[in-house]
């Protein structure tokens, strides 16, 4: 038995009983101010933090984009050197993908998905907080390269052997590698958590085929993350071993094959593009039915086409590699599979159009962004199909035509959907609405700026202008369209300034209307006459989400509680909205308690990564935090029994815990924690 004294002493030493981990007092759920954010395990606060952090990184990535466009505005640009240009476009791509679009998707999923399935929180609230903090520190590690000798310079995919020390001697790629390993951990933890949540925590009656489309797309996205991230992680470990410890994975002299990196990267990288776009597809699948006042057209097709994209997304990766010599059979196979994957995407576009067809359309700001997504994504989809044709693609590879394509799908697709989602759910999250009029002006300027920026890149690309080249000479016919594109980029910047101004101005207006400082902002629960469960609770969402867990009978449950049909099949209201929505005044709900340990654990990780790059002592410093975080976490119950609520604590006092008392305790939880929850579930 002596063999197990070690872990036992760490796990249940005497001093930790009064203060878990012996360091902090447990934060209570009544904590306010910045502490309430740092220690929160509430999926809503975590969602908001994901969104805020993503917008911050969006500013960084946006400035990098403007630098690129300024450099290319005229021939022989002098703003950036070739080396700096390489760093700026690499960091622009990496930032926008991993620190902007993915976390905005995570923000929507964290905030909305538990609400849409009628849950009180995610399955593992502290793991949710861990996901966020690890993501944030991953972003810090990636961007710390700017202060420590320069960013990565090999493109966001950092192909081998260019990513080796010989060709990229600065530490930029190490920071890139480490930062993305951390965001990968974050995504993996989040995927395990959110998949478990969707599968396990649905309200009574909510079968899979009654889940809102957004929740479905979240589930598919999380499965893609679950399986795609580890492939990138494996590739990144190989790269790390090569760069820092002298392994030979990408050393061509020793017989290594640089294509290995390309394959591993794109096996991750292609599902990744669906990871970015599917949440936005989900967002507009919620918005369009509300403003068309019709249920989503072909719900099962919507769901299954999303699942089909999820599966087929694994069979198309080599279309990124048509020019790399993978051989005619591979090229033909991946060419065909790439054309096929356009089918489920086309199904979705058709279904959105059919949802609008014959509907009573309201062109509100969220709806306009949604239509913007449908149109802009379709353009990007069409140019995507031209890449599927391998002979054409070998002409387009590494030209601005590709840049045009992926900005149409990721900016015109994902970002348009997300901005629409912000306008749509802002009242639910913050208790005030963003200005409609400003929102529409914002939309038109964004749409014009977007097309001015990326439309001309189709022409430039077909004229042969290469990507990732820091300048071009006069006389190639590139001047006009590059200048137009730069003007467009600044137009986009203006539209986002308007967006930020709209947030600020609408907030001030709402504060004034509410009666000045200190007053809590509130909105009607259901400002859009919407369909899914998150609109059935007050705005902003109360901390416990639902007073009573709803029992679900149909898809669009909330709508069906408000509306029915008369004998002639016409839509009639059967209940006033105020009678259907919950009051948000329940007081006896048992919620997970806040915790310091997720951020403590996450704080150690960047030190370990910096340590691997510079000095292993940093690793030891970081490991102390990681271990403290893990052991504190294990010792701390997810819900603190002494933390408010109507929680009766009637456990026995015997801490010695022999087998007999353990057996006595066997049925305790059901007689203890359960009653409040159980009572709440009986609707």
């Amino acid at each position: 038995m002596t063999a197990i004294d070690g872990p036992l002493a760490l796990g249940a030493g005497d001093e930790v009983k009064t203060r878990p981990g012996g360091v902090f007092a447990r934060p209570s759920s009544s904590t306010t101010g910045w502490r309430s954010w740092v220690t929160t395990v509430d999926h809503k606060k975590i969602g908001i933090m994901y969104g805020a952090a993503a917008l911050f990184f969006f500013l960084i990535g946006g400035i990098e984009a403007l630098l690129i466009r300024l450099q290319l505005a005229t021939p022989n640009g002098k703003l950036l050197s070739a080396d700096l240009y390489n760093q700026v476009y690499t960091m622009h791509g990496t930032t926008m993908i991993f620190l902007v679009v993915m976390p905005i998707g995570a923000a929507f999923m964290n905030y909305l998905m538990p609400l849409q399935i009628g849950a009180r929180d995610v399955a593992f609230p502290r793991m949710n907080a861990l996901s966020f903090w690890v993501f944030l520190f991953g972003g810090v590690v990636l961007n710390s390269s700017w202060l420590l000798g320069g960013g990565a310079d090999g493109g966001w995919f950092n192909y081998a052997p260019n990513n080796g020390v010989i060709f990229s001697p600065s530490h930029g790629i190490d920071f890139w590698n480490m930062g993305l390993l951390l965001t990968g951990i974050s995504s993996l933890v989040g995927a395990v958590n959110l998949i478990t949540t969707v599968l396990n925590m649905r309200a009574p009656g909510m079968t899979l085929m009654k889940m809102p489309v957004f929740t479905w797309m979240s589930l598919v996205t999380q499965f893609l993350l679950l399986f795609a991230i580890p492939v990138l992680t494996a590739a990144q470990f190989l790269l790390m071993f090569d760069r820092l410890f002298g392994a030979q994975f990408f050393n061509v002299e020793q017989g290594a094959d640089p294509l290995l990196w390309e394959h591993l990267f794109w096996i991750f990288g292609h599902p990744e593009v669906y990871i970015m776009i599917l949440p936005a597809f989900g967002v507009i699948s919620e918005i369009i039915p509300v403003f068309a006042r019709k249920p989503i057209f072909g719900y099962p097709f919507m769901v299954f086409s999303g699942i089909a994209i999820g599966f087929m997304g694994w069979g198309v990766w080599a279309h990124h590699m048509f020019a790399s010599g993978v051989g005619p059979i591979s090229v033909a196979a991946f060419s065909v599979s790439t054309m096929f994957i356009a089918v489920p995407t086309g199904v979705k576009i058709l279904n959105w159009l059919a949802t609008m067809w014959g509907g009573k359309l309201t062109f509100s700001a969220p709806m306009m962004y949604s239509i913007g997504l449908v149109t802009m994504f379709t353009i990007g989809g069409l140019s995507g199909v031209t890449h599927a044709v391998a002979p054409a693609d070998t002409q387009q590879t590494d030209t601005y035509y590709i840049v045009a394509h992926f900005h149409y799908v990721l900016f015109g697709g994902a970002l348009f959907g997300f901005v629409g989602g912000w306008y749509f759910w802002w009242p639910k999250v913050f208790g005030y609405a963003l200005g409609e009029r400003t929102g529409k002006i914002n939309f038109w300027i964004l749409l014009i700026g977007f097309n001015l920026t990326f439309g001309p890149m189709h022409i430039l690309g077909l004229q042969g202008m290469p990507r990732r080249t820091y300048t071009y000479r006069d006389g190639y016919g590139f001047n006009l369209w590059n200048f137009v594109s730069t003007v467009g980029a600044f137009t986009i910047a203006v539209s986002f300034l308007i967006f930020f101004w709209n947030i600020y101005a609408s907030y001030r207006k709402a504060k004034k209307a509410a009666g000045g400082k200190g007053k809590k902002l509130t909105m009607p629960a259901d400002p859009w006459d919407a369909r899914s469960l998150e609109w059935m609770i007050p705005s902003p969402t109360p901390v416990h989400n639902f007073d009573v867990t709803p029992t679900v009978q149909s898809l669009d449950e909330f709508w069906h509680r408000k509306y029915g049909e008369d004998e002639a099949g016409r839509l009639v209201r059967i209940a006033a909205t105020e009678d259907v929505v919950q009051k948000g005044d329940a007081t006896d709900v048992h919620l997970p308690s806040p915790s310091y340990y997720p951020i403590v654990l996450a704080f150690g990780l960047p030190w370990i990564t910096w340590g691997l790059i510079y000095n292993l002592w940093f690793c030891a410093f970081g490991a102390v935090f990681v271990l403290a975080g893990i052991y504190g976490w294990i010792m701390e119950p997810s819900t603190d029994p002494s933390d408010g609520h109507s929680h009766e604590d009637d456990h026995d006092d015997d801490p010695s815990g022999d087998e007999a008392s353990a057996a006595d305790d066997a049925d305790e939880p059901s007689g203890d924690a359960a009653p409040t929850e159980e009572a709440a579930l009986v609707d």
Partner: protein
Amino acid sequence: MTDLTAALKEELVGHDHEHVTSTGISNEKLAMWVFLGSECLLFGGLISTFILYKTRAADGQTPHQLYDILFTSISSFVLLMSSLTMVLAVSAVQRADLRAMRGWLLTTALLGVVFISGQVYEFTEFLGEGYGFTHSPAWSAFYTLTGFHGVHVTLGIVMLLSTAALSLRGHVGSHNPESVEIVGLYWHFVDVVWVVIFTVVYLIK
């Protein structure tokens, strides 16, 4: 004082929503299955790397020429037997026989330690002959794949010992046999992965 121990028990016994999950599987168990799904792809990437690189060495000295198949077969057998003892541990806790459970958990951990010792011995031998991690792509791939598996086994041993230790304080026991089962899921997974790695790395020429 008592608050914490009581709450700890509650934590380990299960959360208050455990008995109302939509699938009927507890959150913890489902999460472990989901996580193991992800692990498949991690090992998939590393196994593919090894298959691609196993003959790539500039001086022609590949790992294959140095394997001691008999030695590795024995240590593989030891690891596979540890799955049997893990099953016996789960069975014991389900019968509420905690003494037997601890015995089998420790046996499982011990078998794991034997396996890891074998790996350390093997690595040392190869290093002694001059084939280190940085020798060539083939050797880098060999050490990375088997090393990743070794780290997984080591973490599993830590989990087994912690489970046995926690059972002494009553945190793990007949009231929550599932926590032992979940550790078992991880352990069996690591074993199954070794079956694949042993076949791919050592047996296939």
